[in-house]
């Protein structure tokens, strides 16, 4: 193939290399992958390496990065209390999601089940918040969470039941639960959809056999349905954890990470240092930490669950 050197070796066919047919195929492979590869390498892979480079500098973003400080940024980040709050909040969001949001979605999926009349209606309604943009979700929940019970619906309901109006987004302990409520409103339908699809794949005969063998519906659920739903649950947990780590828009609009950094997330922390304070070297280091966190989690999780085909939740 010396006369045709234009195509990199790696795109050549495994077998039968050398015939004109295989050259044509190699050309097809090369050209078909080219647009995806160029875009992906330039805008996804290359930025990772560039960020690693900038993270070693104290750099304000103007002119070339010259003030090399080695691992200084990485050390300073770990020494920053606000970063630790962001990390804790990511952890709390993960715990809330796994303990509340996902079981709730699963419960609803089981309730809607396979044959409930009107299941498509419920699915359509429950999934709707997922397609409504985060901006709109955030603004709607800003209305609902208004601290004044005459303006904010949530407080009005609490007062109507004899409770006390809460400041929600203005309170350092309530802000994260308040954000979590809005997040759950938006995302429970997505997880429910996954579980519904997973349930659809479980043959009804297995559950019927369980019933005939005398299992009640609770036993049926815990010993038959749940284990068979394993791969779907693992996917939904995976997506939920990755989503919690990178939460941004909803928090940015609803609380801006406040009050006093109480609802800071890793992404709001990075954006604040990158685009508000223009400490770009420092923010790059934050991005690297986030990337390493996601990567480590993904690899360990895939190893533990022996499943390597998780897809994006978009």
């Amino acid at each position, binding site marked *: 193939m010396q006369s045709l050197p234009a195509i990199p070796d*790696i*795109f050549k*066919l*495994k*077998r039968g290399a050398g015939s004109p047919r295989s050259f*044509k*195929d190699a050309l*097809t492979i090369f050209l*078909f*992958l080219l*647009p*995806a590869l160029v*875009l*992906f390498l*330039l*805008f*996804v*892979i*290359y*930025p990772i390496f*560039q*960020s690693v480079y*900038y993270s070693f500098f104290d750099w304000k973003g103007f002119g070339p990065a010259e003030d090399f400080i080695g691992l200084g940024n990485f050390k300073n980040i770990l020494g920053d209390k606000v970063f630790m709050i962001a990390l804790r909040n990511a952890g709390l969001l993960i715990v809330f999601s796994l303990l509340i949001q996902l079981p709730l979605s699963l419960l*609803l999926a089981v*309730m809607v089940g396979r044959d409930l009349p009107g299941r498509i209606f*419920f699915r359509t309604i*429950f999934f*709707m918040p997922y*397609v*409504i*943009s*985060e*901006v*709109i979700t955030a603004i709607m929940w800003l*209305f*609902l969470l208004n601290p004044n019970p005459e*303006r904010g*619906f949530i407080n009005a309901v609490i007062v109507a039941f004899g409770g006390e109006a809460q400041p929600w987004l203005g309170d350092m302990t309530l802000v994260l639960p308040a954000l979590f409520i809005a997040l759950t*409103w938006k995302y429970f339908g997505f997880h429910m*959809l996954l579980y519904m*699809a997973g349930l659809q*794949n479980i043959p009804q005969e297995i559950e019927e056999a369980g019933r005939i063998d005398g299992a009640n519906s609770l036993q049926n659920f815990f010993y038959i349905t749940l284990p068979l739903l394993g*791969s*779907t649950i693992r*996917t939904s947990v995976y*997506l939920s954890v*990755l989503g919690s780590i*990178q939460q941004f828009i909803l928090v940015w609009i609803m609380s801006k990470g406040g009050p006093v950094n109480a609802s800071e997330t890793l*992404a709001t922390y*990075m954006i604040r240092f*990158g685009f508000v304070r223009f400490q*770009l070297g420092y923010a*790059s280091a934050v*991005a690297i930490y986030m*990337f390493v966190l996601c990567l480590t989690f*993904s690899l360990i999780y895939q190893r533990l669950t022996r499943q390597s085909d*998780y*897809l*994006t939740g*978009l």
Partner: protein
Amino acid sequence: MTITRSRPRWNTKKIASRSFQYLILSLVVVIVFVPIVILIFGALKTRGEFMTQPYVPPIPPRWDNLTAILTKPSYDFWQMLLNSLIVMLSVTFSVVAICSLAAFVFARMEFRAKGLAFNLFTVGLMFPINIAILPVYFVLRQLDILDSLLAVIIVQTAFQLSGNILILRGFFTAIPAELQDAAYIDGCTAFGFFWRILLPLARPALGAVAALTMIVSWNDLLVPLIVLNSDKLWTLPLGTMQFQGQYGQDLSLVAAFVALSALPTIIFYLFAERQIVSGLTAGAVKG
């Protein structure tokens, strides 16, 4: 002899459990609708009415806020709608074209670095745009394309590749290999097979990917927020956020703007629900 499957009988226990199911599910329906309904109520009220009685139905409905947003040039609603449309259509077209080409190669052809190239794309799944936005910003600045719709289109497309290549690869793999062999025997080229046989067969899959991409692109705020400066280029989500910041005191006007910007998504969703659902579940659930 035929065996009929035993049907659950309609006893009281069954009726009680069904009623309980419907009760809970209806409650959730109400919870889903509360924010939306309050938003729509607010959009149809005057500023004063929204302040004093935000939850009662808007009787009579006031259309002033909605017409103001649709007609007042300084609100720029139509310009933002147009910008969002340009971005969404370009991204969707690019994603479908680029991903189906790549997915075809990964599903249907063998070459030495296939595993390596495929793993490279899966890295993209662990590097979502929320984390990557700062690094990507540097690259856009070097290319000197900040503050342009082109930059938004390129970045959104690049970050939609990994997931959609995987989804399409799954669909393409499911198409029988015999078809490909038959096409090759009849003298079809790889591209010919891809273009004339595979793509028409995969139309539902392409529809799913397109619908998902449309939603993601239409709703994206982060990329326009970081990339765009000039208000003439703002997309609808960015414009909505800025509008809320600027007119935040006038709650009913904000509600009207938000309701109008949510409308296209909801209408689109009701028409394309099947595609969206099949795309998502194909992506995340294995058989």
